[in-house]
């Protein structure tokens, strides 16, 4: 059985930046990624990112992935990768079971484990939501931006969070007609700059509206949308049929935290963080000694915060393994300030209240 000091599950922004900081601290790590490409969500993000220079703002997501991978490559002797390999089991004796690309199972024993598995898309319940042509927004991005395949020609986007707005824009860029963005809430969920960008292109965003049903035999051919009143109940007589050949659902993400439950980490349901998240303290260590978390798996946020959290936790792990980074104190402070700064505005409020609820204290 292979033995490693630090096993990182997930090669997204948080996992990669943690590997870098751990390496700088002198800790060797193995990053396991189930996809063939490293970079997590970033590999399909063709748009420029927000944030500040420290989090690579105005760089396109795809290129941020390249930067983070390059940073890891500079520590080749310290960081190794296993791609197309999925962690399927995590056990209390710090042994993980992995399944590789040839469906071969093997075991790895680790001193510390960082779980950086990200989040998965929430599904929406409506009649016929299993018809072909109904996609999650992430799937559409993968199809379009990784494989160059269009999901359809006439699309309705369900959900006006940043992901819904950004993917709508990318669909328009690809020549797909986004007929409308519908949103159940009374206000647009994402950044207004994204909404304005779409509206300019002639795409209407309709609030207090939801999808009621999809129609079609072999695949979706139309949908029924209906207005909602202030109590989120259907307004009678407002049903409208829109013909589409694809529907894109983007109603939020929830942390991919099942490995943590398997390990026996104490979990808590915190709706503001996206669902079931591990109970952690400031060090991002779970209730199980030497099991750490970073990124969307401990609260759905942004790549900018996932990167900074990765750096932060990488430092802490180095310290815990008796190898503090030469600039430990300075860097810890810098990263926690960056996180506070990113979360200080109205869009960070969810994370702030979520973390407070999770920690049951005032440190958040």
């Amino acid at each position, binding site marked *: 059985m292979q033995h490693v000091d630090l096993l990182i599950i997930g090669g997204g922004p948080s996992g990669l930046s943690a590997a870098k900081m751990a390496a700088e601290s002198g800790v060797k790590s193995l990053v396991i990624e189930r996809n063939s490409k490293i970079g997590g969500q970033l590999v399909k993000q063709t*748009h*420029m*990112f*927000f*944030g*500040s*220079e420290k989090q690579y*703002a*105005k*760089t*396109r997501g795809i*290129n941020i992935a390249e930067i983070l991978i390059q940073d890891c490559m500079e520590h080749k002797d310290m960081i190794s990768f296993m791609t197309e390999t999925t962690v399927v089991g995590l056990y209390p004796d710090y042994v993980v079971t992995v399944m590789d690309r040839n469906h071969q199972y093997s075991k790895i024993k680790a001193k510390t484990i960082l779980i950086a598995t990200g989040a998965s898309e929430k599904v929406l319940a409506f009649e016929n939501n299993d018809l072909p042509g109904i996609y999650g927004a992430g799937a559409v991005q993968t199809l379009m931006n990784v494989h160059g395949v269009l999901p359809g020609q006439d699309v309705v986007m369900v959900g006006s969070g940043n992901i819904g707005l950004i993917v709508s824009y990318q669909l*328009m*860029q690809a020549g797909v007609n986004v007929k409308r963005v519908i949103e159940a809430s*009374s*206000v*647009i969920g994402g*950044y*207004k*700059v*994204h*909404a*304005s*960008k*779409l*509206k*300019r*292109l*002639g*795409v*209407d*965003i309709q*609030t207090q509206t939801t999808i009621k049903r999809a129609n079609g035999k072999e695949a979706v051919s139309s949908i029924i949308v209906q207005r909602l009143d202030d109590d989120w109940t259907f307004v009678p007589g407002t049903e409208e049929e829109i013909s589409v050949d694809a529907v894109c659902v983007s109603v939020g993400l929830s942390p991919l935290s099942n490995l943590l439950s398997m390990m026996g980490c104490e979990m808590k349901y915190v709706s503001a963080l996206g669902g079931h998240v591990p109970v952690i303290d400031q060090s991002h260590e779970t209730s199980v000694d030497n099991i750490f978390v970073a990124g969307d798996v401990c609260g759905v946020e*942004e790549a*900018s915060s996932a990167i900074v959290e990765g750096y932060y936790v990488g430092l802490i792990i180095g310290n815990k393994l008796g190898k503090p980074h030469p600039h430990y104190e300075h860097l810890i402070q810098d990263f926690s300030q960056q996180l506070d*700064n*990113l*979360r*200080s*505005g*109205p*869009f*960070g409020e969810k994370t702030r209240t979520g973390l407070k609820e999770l920690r049951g204290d005032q440190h958040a």
Partner: protein
Amino acid sequence: MLNKTGVPEKSLILSRFPDNVNLGKPKAITECYEPIPCNPCETSCPFDAITVGKDINTPPKVDFDQCTGCGICVYSCPGLAIIVAQIKEDQAFFKIAYEFSPLPEVGETVHAINREGNILGTARIEKVTLRKKQDKTALIDVSTSKDFLHEFVTIRRMS
């Protein structure tokens, strides 16, 4: 309205414009009204004309005395929320970011589009710039009627 449709109120739009006298020279208009964690406009401006400040959630503010209208912030803004505007005689000149292909050509007549996505009238493409450092976001110089100064926001090709 902005919250529900993505279209800012007229008063909001006007709050980001200098008076017409000052628009004899090109100036950056930032249409970024909401506190979001973002500041590439500030860090990309070579003339220190845009301030976001220490709290990166603060919306940007342009110092029109410092702004040269160079357009660097226009293609550096991830929200595509900045245009440069100028008045010359009876024409309004703009620099806008454009991320659709194929790019329009110099001299081409295109639709002038407002913030609702509707056609205002026509506009003429004056210049198309796409250097490597712009990272695939083109900067387009376009002229249209001065009447559209506060309404114009982008172009759409006629086809």
